[in-house]
């Protein structure tokens, strides 16, 4: 739907297009049922970074505070990418795994239900 504007054919510049991120893409990760982390997270990384960097460096820094973090076994974790089931190749890059600017990754750790099973 077109915006009602006083200027004919009004169009806005989008400040968050990928070219403004200096070679990075910005994407989002959510650890399901762990709402002690109040919101999904935002990361900016080069698209050719290996997926394994995310698993070995980025996410442990982001989520390692949680006592459930020790239950994480990447071979059993369930993923979705942009709401579709997702089976990431750990050695491939983010891009090769189909992760693009503003993608949303969600992961569930079987048997981890948050603090006292509260989803926190």
């Amino acid at each position, binding site marked *: 739907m077109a915006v009602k504007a006083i200027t004919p054919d009004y169009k806005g510049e989008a400040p968050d*297009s990928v070219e*403004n991120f200096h070679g990075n893409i910005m994407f*989002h990760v959510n650890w399901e049922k762990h709402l*002690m982390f109040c919101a999904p997270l935002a990361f900016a990384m080069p698209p050719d970074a290996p997926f394994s960097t995310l698993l070995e460096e980025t996410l442990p820094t982001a989520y390692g505070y949680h006592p459930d973090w020790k239950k994480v076994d990447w071979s059993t974790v369930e993923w979705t990418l942009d709401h579709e089931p997702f089976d990431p190749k750990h050695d491939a890059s983010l891009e090769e795994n189909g992760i693009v600017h503003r993608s949303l990754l969600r992961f569930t750790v079987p048997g981890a239900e*948050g603090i006292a099973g509260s989803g*926190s």
Partner: protein
Amino acid sequence: MSRKLNLRERYQRMTRDLAWEPSYQSKSDIYPQMEFEGIKIEDWDKWEDPFRLTMDAYWKYQAEKERKLYSIIDAFAQNNGHLNVTDARYVNALKLFLTGVSPLEYAAHRGFAMVGRQFAGVGTQVACQMQSIDELRHVQTQVHTISHYNKYFNGFHDFRHMHDRVWYLSVPKSFFDDAMSAGPFEFITAISFSFEYVLTNLLFMPFMSGAAFNGDMATVTFGFSAQSDESRHMTLGLEVIKFMAEQHPDNIPIIQKWIDKWFWRGYRLLTLVGMMMDYMLPKKVMSWREAWEIYFEQNGGALFEDLARYGLRMPKYWEQTIEGKDHITHQAWGIFYNYTHAAAFHTWIPDDEELDWLSAKYPDTFDQYYRPRFEYWREQAEAGNRFYNPTLPMLCQTCQIPMGFTEPGNPTTIGFRASDFDGNRYHFCSDGCKDIFDNEPQKFCQSWMPVHQIYQGNCGGATVPDVLNWYHLNFGVDNFDYAQSPDRQHWQQWKGEPAEESDAPDEAA
């Protein structure tokens, strides 16, 4: 023989008699913003002035209020009134209110001046111009309060600069920028009706009663001084809706869409107020849930029953707010607890008595979903391991609040919505925020999103101290947990309370 005009005649002279027919300029050139929104006005003279106030009477009333206000503010300052608040934690609610809302009073002053120039009816022009002056008075009185508290507490020192930069202040800022960049009819529907008429009681009532309960006479005083203006503004809001609705049936779907949009935007904005009520007032007035029941479900419900004769209905997604009333304040406090290292106010875990109050006020949700996380955080803080979220959050493109709201019907799962527009993807916290984007993607694709700007390198650097420096916040002073704050240390000194080690677990951190 000349005779003095009575008040009504003076008002008539000031308004209708000023509305002459232009002879050498077209009306569409004089009022160029009257058509593009699609609102049809057939007869501006049908505008019923809700308050027939002449300028001389207005100045007289306002001057009296100012005299009372400033004598109380002076007395407050001379008597060190800030020492009479219940606890220094309370001042953090003030920090959020005065840095978040006071700049909106100024924005309202500008907005009403602009629409007062644009409306083609003189009664409407006068009403908007008086409100514009009211709003300027409100921001001035609040700046005096900022000035007083700024002498004794941290985080108040640069509210104007902060308003344009700090991540959570982008929530109120974007709300008003959205209204001011709309046309005049949408602006007045957004601010006068949806905010002032439908929702303002939820801002002023809890905040001013909260100030009174917590011994903050400076805030109570500006609240009372503003209150008689607010009732005038509310009356204007209702008149605006009735006038547009009665002018042409084609206006109804346009007005309804604006009501849907601005109700949802206001509801998201008021989450911050609800959080203050439930978490930041040492002496509580009522819960957010109770306030929403009285001021929206009952009063708002009756209002929309009354408006049904025009074909207007309750705002879209209002049902979600009924479920949300049990959740949103706890989720919001969690957001600020996560990111208080990047904020200009302090957060803390409620004490046992407060946790019990929350359990009692939210019997269906608090113990099951929220109390466990607060108790875990407290346990960790006491062990010297206070939680701060080390990664920037994902934001909703419309309300700009971190995506911390859960899916209706599923309190352990975040709500996710998205839209693709012009080669980019945009994310939202709710159906309400997604609809607002989808109706005007050319507008909302331009939003200045604090997290995205940090990642683009536009906010002073990549570390928290870099960004806080760019915000003009003092790292280690304005931010972090209340337990370790200089505010708390000062308060203990002023009140002669011993600084107990066990009360300040983060002191060494």
